């Protein structure tokens, strides 16, 4: 019985289920409990707030790079230099907002289709493996960047070590859900966790 339950809950979904169709000779699959949308929204808002808070650091970094670059002789008007820096910061924040939305969409899709078990806080609010990975790879990184005034925290080797550690460690929170599944599926769980963690480089 356990094996059957694990197959339904943990296995990769059949293509029919991915396409939203069910075979006529099989009972309809139970709805997949998703990580609540409010958790994703909270994660998104928190990350954006942290990035917005680090905008002054980013601005100083861009100004410094502009002063050191060959373009400084071409931009003699301080107002124009100011405008160029401000445009850079604004566009960077806007692009980040879009990239983060897409990254969290990817995480939510993986959360629903690749590994479905959920952990609960106080018996409520279930959350999945890929939510944990996305949260650990975004909020702490931006919090460190804001607190320590580091403009580009993701360009350090420490960041890569951290996200790979998150990608490998997060599945252990769900150990009881995958300990008995086939080795190939364990490999899928771990590799997808590490891949999502690594993809956080762009978010």
């Amino acid at each position, binding site marked *: 019985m356990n094996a059957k339950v694990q197959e339904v809950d943990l296995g990769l979904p059949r293509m029919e289920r991915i396409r939203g169709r069910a075979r006529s000779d099989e009972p309809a699959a139970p709805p997949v409990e*998703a990580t609540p949308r409010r958790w994703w929204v909270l994660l998104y808002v928190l990350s954006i707030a942290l990035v917005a808070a680090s905008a002054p650091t980013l601005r100083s970094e861009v100004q410094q790079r502009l002063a050191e670059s060959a373009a400084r002789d071409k931009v003699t008007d301080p107002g124009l230099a100011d*405008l160029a820096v*401000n*445009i850079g910061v*604004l*566009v960077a924040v806007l692009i980040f907002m879009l990239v983060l939305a*897409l990254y969290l*969409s990817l995480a939510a899709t993986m959360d629903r*289709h690749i590994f479905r078990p959920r952990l609960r806080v106080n018996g409520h609010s279930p959350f999945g493996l890929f939510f944990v990975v996305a949260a650990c790879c975004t909020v702490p990184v931006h919090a460190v960047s804001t607190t320590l005034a580091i403009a580009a925290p993701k360009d350090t080797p420490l960041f890569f070590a951290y996200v790979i550690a998150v990608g490998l460690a997060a599945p252990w929170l769900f150990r009881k859900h995958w300990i008995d599944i086939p080795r190939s599926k364990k490999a899928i769980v771990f590799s997808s966790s590490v891949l999502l963690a690594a993809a956080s480089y762009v978010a």
Partner: protein
Amino acid sequence: MLAHLTTVTRSVRAEGRSSKTELLVPPIVFVTGIVVGWASLSDSHVLGSGDWVTAKQSASADVLLHILGRNLSVLLLMFSGACTLGFSTVLGLGLLSTYVGATFGVAAANVGVADALSSVMLYAPVEFAGLLLAATAGLMPVTALVRAAFAESSRIRPVASYVAALRPALLYLCYSLVLIAVSGGIETVVILSR
């Protein structure tokens, strides 16, 4: 036209592909960019030779074609996000809004806010409405994708939602083209009457 547009918006919302929140994104970005651009160059007292000085000496058809060509290229940049996951729209909207804010800031610093406003108030609102509508259309597919990823039902597929949103996005593009054509006509009349 506005009634039809409202009907379209309602039908799109009913299909779960868009919402009022998404319609607010381009205007908010646009206003933010204008403020940033204006604040950056509000102290500049530099007057260049504007396009309209040259255009004034041309025939009305040339002026209209010049304006339409310029605005159409911007409009297509705003819409191009439909094919690039929204990236080119966000980039274009950020650059356009700061450009508008900066140029208006320079104009206001030189001739005053009232004069600067009065010179563009007849056509700029229509033109901006057209561009923002095109930007909204450009962002519709990617917002549909994001919305589908977080939908309550796991049967809504993000990629299918992205593709499905292209159709209403094209409809929005058609409306924005009409607005740009109207604003181009008004701007031509304004420029030639100076």
